[in-house]
């Protein structure tokens, strides 16, 4: 395997992705990510110099809304699925500030 994923990398990506992996999951993730990256490295065989990265397939531009209020008070719908709420707001563990 050309791509060796370190414990630190898995730890770091876990922080970015907000995933906490068990010891076994981490080992598996190291292996999976390593072999996926080896596979993805296949792209390096392609000469893409001078090729513009393509994010949208079609040249569709300028899709806009007019600045007109169309929504009313939807707080009941907004909060309908909240796992925890209080005072018409989403309740979360205290944020550090």
């Amino acid at each position, binding site marked *: 395997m050309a791509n060796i994923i370190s414990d630190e990398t*898995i730890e770091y*990506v876990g922080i970015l992705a907000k995933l906490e992996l068990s010891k076994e999951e981490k080992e598996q993730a190291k292996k999976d990510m390593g072999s996926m990256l080896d596979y993805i490295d296949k*792209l390096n065989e*392609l000469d893409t110099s001078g090729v513009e990265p*393509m994010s949208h397939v079609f040249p569709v531009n300028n899709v806009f809304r007019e600045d007109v209020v169309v929504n009313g008070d939807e707080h009941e719908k907004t909060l309908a699925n909240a796992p925890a709420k209080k005072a018409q707001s989403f309740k979360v563990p205290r944020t550090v500030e």
Partner: protein
Amino acid sequence: MDLTGLTAVELGRKIQAKEVTVLDAVRAVLDQIKKSEEKVNAYVTVDEAGALKRAEEVQKKIDAGELKGPLAGVPAAIKDNMCTEGLLTTCSSKILGNFVPTYTSEAVKNLEAAGAVIIGKANMDEFAMGSTTETSAYGETKNPWNTEHVPGGSSGGSCAAVAAEECIFALGSDTGGSIRQPSSFCGVTGIKPTYGTVSRYGLIAYGSSLDQIGPVAKDVTDCATILEVISSHDTKDSTSVKREDLDFTSALLDDVKGMKIGIPRDYLGEGLDPEVKDAVLKAAKVLEEKGAVVEEFDLSLAEYAIPAYYVIASAEASSNLARFDGIKYGYRTEEYEGLHNMYKKTRSEGFGPEVKRRIMLGSFVLSSGYYDAYYLKALRTKALIKQAFDRAFETYDVILGPAAPTTAPKLGESLADPIKMYLGDIYTISVNLAGLPGISVPCGTDKKGLPIGLQLIGDCFQEKKIIRAAYSFEQSRSYQRCPLAEM
């Protein structure tokens, strides 16, 4: 009368002709569900009460002459990644195990406006990540042709439900082959339209730049009819394309005279099951005999589509799935200490292994120092793949090939080796990267009696060409019901 064996258009006609009531149709499907669902597990949610109530409403409108379309009163299944107001929508994930949307996705709204009756929400790979429908948190769906095999994925529930006649038609979504591959495995027909044809508003995103909703049904006529209904220019979806040519049923013609069909040699090489190859080439022969000009050519780059796809789709998914955090909706872990611990525990408990695998990969390829090497490289590869298709469509009207390299594998064989599983999408993935329309139609069965799918790919906005070719081919054979439905 054997109502579940009818196509949507046939059933719709009988309902309009008052030979069948909507309630009859809905009951027939619910009965079939009772018979076979235990073996197939095509649904996450069956909304029996909702469907019966809706059947009466629709019948009234039909009787009043307000609903005259071909889908009025026809029972349908919706893949469980499309929001349906008031009806549980889980994406087959534990993290959305209790999520009841407060709005309905645009495609489903269009279906409802046409009078279709939603029977329930079809099972799928969790967040559409998978090719087997085994990653669902609500149990795997089984192939109605042989319940020891997978139905394919990620729209496995939609395709299995159509094949098992637990609905008359279904909506699926296709990010890398998720309609075409399970359609092929389940012996049904499915279309992935040109990107931007069907609104993505309300479709729970996996890879936003690749996702498209499309129909799954028994035949090409149904698929064209359903696609015509669900397609719309939606101002709520910035990537929705304004098209004047949505009359897809006008292309239901048995005529391919002079049509130029190209078969990529890259699609016939290593890894392709000989029985699949044989069936696909026979199908090509049928079209040739009907007057099409069929030749092989080099499309190139097929082998680069999968790695490029996994970079782009995983990257987008890592961001799209960040919103599932236990704050606004869905699952929240029971015990936690502080905010970040709540995030991590919620997500680690709520997502399954395949989803976590892709979120980790996606987060990594976007992280500082890797963006250019992976993400931009993949977007450049995508540009080259698009160019290769553009060149091919200068010569050919339609590209023909298999939908998948094999027929449906056995349950439990695929997940152990993810890369091998990903390779199964080799013929479908590049179509999503280039935003093209593709259709899968049944073209035979292998020795084990498992269905084989023929894939036809068109240039952007050329659904009509692939519909015409598929319809013409379809005239050479009759729809084969799966053994489970025949029982």
